[in-house]
């Protein structure tokens, strides 16, 4: 999974294509809507986001989310009343899956909200200033990348105590590196281009060049990457909570539900398979959408 977040194969990193400007919204939309996988992705993402936003209205048994047990209704298989069955304390699995998307998306928003600004900033600086700044920043990302991300996140969450907050911190600690690398390679290409040189000759401040000239040209690449990232943040968050290091009960979390349900395999398969499918569904959506956006913005090298 990591490679999807990474720049790309080293052979191509240096030839990153500058982002296309969003010149013609209609043309873009046309191109996007002609791409069936992208549209499917967009629909899935929309469903997932709607679930998260409107959970209390969509979920069949919103009262069963927390502070609810009904031991007479435990382990019920999927039926008309409970499409996804019930879990070990008698809660409706579908309801908890829908609410589970809230946690997943919260994780995405916080992790990307923390790591993108930080990563982009470092990437811009490394790419534009070069020299020692570049060496220090890029070697730091290399070191950070030498640790398998899930392993690092596991170690950090374990060392702090396992909960949603710490899971967010643990994932963010690593995530910025991917953005740093991406923006670095784009910036390095851009800085030799005329509009940057022109701004330099006109005596524009470094701040101006970084944030007014270079950054806007990275926006489409960042948004594609962020969309693809969303899926992988969900994935890594689910892996953490699957191992018991993420969100704690009774908060409905998809990874935790898969792990708890796994105790009851194979006879009560729905308790882990349904939330697992829900995770897959969300990741699939973000991936398809990201691919579609990449084609639309024509930023081939963002993975």
């Amino acid at each position, binding site marked *: *999974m*990591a*490679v*999807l977040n*990474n720049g790309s*194969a*080293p*052979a191509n*990193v*240096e030839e990153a294509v500058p982002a296309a400007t969003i010149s013609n919204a209609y043309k873009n939309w046309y191109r996007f809507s002609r791409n069936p996988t992208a549209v499917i992705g967009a629909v899935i993402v929309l469903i997932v986001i709607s679930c998260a936003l409107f959970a209390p209205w969509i979920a069949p048994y919103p009262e069963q989310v927390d502070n609810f047990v009904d031991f007479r209704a435990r382990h019920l298989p999927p039926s008309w009343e409970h499409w996804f069955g019930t879990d070990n304390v008698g809660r409706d699995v579908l309801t908890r899956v829908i609410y589970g998307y809230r946690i997943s998306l919260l994780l995405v928003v916080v992790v990307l909200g923390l790591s993108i600004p930080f990563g982009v900033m470092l990437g811009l600086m490394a790419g534009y200033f070069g020299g020692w700044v570049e060496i220090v920043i890029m*070697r*730091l990302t*290399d*070191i*950070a*990348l*030498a*640790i*398998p*991300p*899930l*392993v*690092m996140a*596991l*170690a*950090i969450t*374990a*060392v*702090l*105590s396992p909960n949603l907050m710490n899971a967010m911190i643990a994932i963010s600690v690593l995530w910025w590196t991917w953005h740093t690398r991406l923006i670095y390679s784009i910036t390095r290409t851009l800085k030799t281009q005329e509009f940057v040189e022109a701004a330099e000759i006109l005596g524009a401040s470094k701040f101006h060049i970084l944030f007014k000239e270079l950054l806007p040209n990275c926006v489409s690449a960042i948004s594609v990457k962020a969309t693809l990232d969303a*899926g992988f943040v969900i*994935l890594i968050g*689910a*892996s953490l909570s*699957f*191992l*018991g*290091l993420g969100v704690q009960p009774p908060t409905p979390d998809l*990874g935790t539900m*898969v792990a708890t349900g*796994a105790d009851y*395999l*194979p006879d009560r*398969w729905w308790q*882990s*398979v349904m939330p*697992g499918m829900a*995770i*897959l569904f969300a*990741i*699939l959506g973000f*991936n*398809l959408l990201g691919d579609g956006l990449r084609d639309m913005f024509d930023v081939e090298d963002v993975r």
Partner: protein
Amino acid sequence: MEFLYFLARRLLWSILVLVGLSIIIFTIARIVPGDPARIALGPLATQEQVAELQAEMGLDQPVHSQYLGYVGGLLQGDLGQSLLTQRSVNEDIGDTFAATFELVVATVIVSMIIGVPAGVMAARNKDGWLDNSSRFIALLGVVTPAFFLAILLQILAGYVLQILPVTNRMPAGIDFQANITGLMVIDTMLRGRFDLTVEALRHLLLPTIALSAATIGQIMRITRSSMIDVSRQDYIEASRAFGIPARIRTFKYMLRPSFVPPLTILGLEFASLIGNAFVVEMVFGWPGMASYGVRTILQKDLNAVMGVVMVSGLFFVFVNLLIDVLVGYVDPRVRIRGTR
């Protein structure tokens, strides 16, 4: 000469990464709340017992001398004592690493022998049904969480069809020590126990599939696109013009240069492969370093966690060094361009 220079540079850089890694790991380990000595002694220990062990473990020393002690230990290959097992972490990792290594090697082999040919076929069938379905499968492999795929495989092959074992490396009743190479498949063959080789392979199969799904997809796609790139090169056009048969063209002129991207992607993918090993080993009760890592992480067994993360990093760095050297050897352009 030029190659030696390249090699030296890569080696030096790897060492630098490892030093950085050791600092990061040590820093993380020092922010642990809680007292490893108390954990080690068990719940009913007295305060004096705790203080005594703290001194023994050097926990009463200032931080910088603890770090120096840690690095000193690392250089001598000493990772300290595990609180969970009461043994040296070296021994624990030594005992468990081979199982993880076997799983990872199997995954790499499977990924390459499935991913590369599938990518070649997809490229030859560009935009045909084969290409499209391989794209879909690759996508599924990438978006399915490894732990979920592992569970699905367990349900399907282990419970529903009941054709494959779902846990461990060997049937529980069999007392076979893989103590030659540590790799069950190899050791059973070396001892002439081919019946057990079959068992070892059967146990290896499901975890390998679960672990390789993502990598296969990546390799398939990258092979496909690099094949397509290469096929547009002049010399391929020329060979086509000369009437060299398509099969030879594909395998002799296109595949060899196309091997470089799958190798590099394997290096990058290796990080997530090791990460996924942690969940996959847990699901399949695979007695490897990764499941040892999860157990010790859940118990806050500090030295063991540091050891496992360090060895994971070392493994990753080493594999990438190996791949870089391999790629540099095959493709001289990389040497000139230097490190990435």
